[in-house]
């Protein structure tokens, strides 16, 4: 219990901040959503032209900067990369396609459950199923291979890009798109969003908070550590929503959600499976990116590309339901995940052992 205290507090803070952000203007049950917010940033940059989902979300900037500063301060910042970059790009892309079928990343799934959205419970079932499939391949010896050390400069590029985004957000040059209608136009004040992001980024960096890791470690190692954070987010956001009168139990008319159970399930199943192969949910990928992990930066770029394509090709679902093209994309996504899972199984699954303790330092 003692070791879980940190992550439980972190989860509770994240859950409460999410409710507060909604209170101050973010879309309902979307105080924080990594997939949605990356999609909005892709829109603001004109990479996709869906007019209602374009905004440079300060939460993303804050999360990355919070995690970067914390990692730097704790001497945990280290530039590394080179572990199957193109596969990671594809996986990031596919996770985004799945998340936009469901309408939310795993973090928003928890927040939607805490708002009484029962569709998210269907999503959770799919998410767990996807994680289960991913674990099957992990146990078979799935690996994206080792990462290698890189020059420090490489690791600074992503946090620096966030500063660039912040400047674009504040300066609002004509080539940046900002939605005039919700949900893109629904947002809390910039400073509040930024500070909330900084706090979440710092806490998530310290505790390694991860939605997919929670269920994965519970199944794989009977380890309750990460899922404690997941449960704390749910509990805190639930209490917050009840206090604010924002809790509405049901399947119908839930905010920024649709009621197609099959595709909610399959969307999150795709996101869950892809995330297990990546080693973490979209939030965790952002945190790792901030710590100098270039493999995760590539994943985030893949998610951004996925979001851009999802709207340009009409793959993303809407409140009305899943899009026909989106269903095809999800099915293709499953086929690609199966290929990736199969072809990355290390033939020699035996653990390599060395007979002595001497090290080649």
């Amino acid at each position: 219990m003692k070791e879980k205290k940190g992550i439980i507090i972190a989860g509770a803070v994240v859950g409460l901040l999410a409710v507060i952000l909604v209170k101050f203007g973010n879309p309902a049950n979307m105080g924080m959503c990594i997939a949605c917010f990356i999609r909005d940033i892709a829109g603001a940059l004109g990479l996709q032209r869906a007019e209602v989902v374009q905004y440079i979300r300060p939460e993303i900037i804050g999360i990355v900067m919070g995690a970067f500063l914390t990692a730097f301060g704790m001497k945990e910042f280290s530039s590394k990369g080179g572990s199957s970059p193109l596969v990671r790009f594809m996986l990031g892309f596919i996770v985004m396609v799945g998340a936009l079928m469901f309408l939310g990343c795993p973090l928003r799934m928890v927040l939607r459950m805490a708002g009484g959205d029962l569709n998210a419970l269907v999503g959770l079932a799919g998410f767990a199923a996807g994680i289960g499939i991913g674990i099957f391949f992990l146990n078979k010896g799935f690996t994206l291979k080792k990462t290698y050390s890189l020059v420090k400069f490489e690791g600074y590029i992503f946090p620096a890009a966030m500063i660039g985004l912040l400047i674009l957000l504040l300066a609002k040059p004509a080539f940046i798109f900002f939605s005039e209608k919700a949900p893109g136009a629904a947002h809390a004040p910039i400073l509040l969003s930024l500070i909330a992001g900084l706090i979440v980024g710092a806490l998530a960096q310290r505790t390694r908070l991860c939605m997919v890791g929670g269920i994965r470690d519970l199944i794989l190692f009977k380890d309750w550590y990460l899922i404690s954070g997941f449960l704390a987010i749910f509990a805190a956001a639930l209490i917050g929503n009840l206090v604010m009168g924002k809790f509405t139990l049901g399947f119908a008319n839930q905010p920024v959600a649709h009621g197609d159970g099959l595709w909610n399930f399959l969307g999150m199943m795709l996101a869950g499976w892809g995330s297990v192969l990546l080693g973490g949910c979209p939030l965790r990928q952002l945190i790792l990116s901030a710590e100098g992990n270039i493999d995760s930066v590539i994943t985030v770029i893949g998610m951004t590309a996925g979001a851009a394509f999802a709207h340009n090709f009409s793959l993303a679902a809407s409140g009305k339901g899943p899009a026909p093209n989106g269903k095809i994309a999800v099915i293709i996504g499953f086929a690609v995940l199966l290929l990736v899972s199969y072809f990355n199984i290390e033939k020699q699954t035996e653990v390599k052992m060395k007979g002595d303790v001497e090290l080649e330092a």
Partner: protein
Amino acid sequence: MKLNQIDARGLSCPQPVLLAKKGVEKNPEGIQVLVDNTTARDNVSRFANNSGYKVEVINQGGDFLLTLQK
């Protein structure tokens, strides 16, 4: 006593923990795991504690050598 050693440097979680798990299944008396980041260090240590092993961590210039013993 010399323990078997697993080199899990460069691998991202949960792979170091999976390797440790397979390692102690083969060598219940104990193993050593070499990792190169604090997340893997913490995760392998937590797995070891949960599985009834004592863990000793030695910092080796950025890498961590974890010795798991009953």
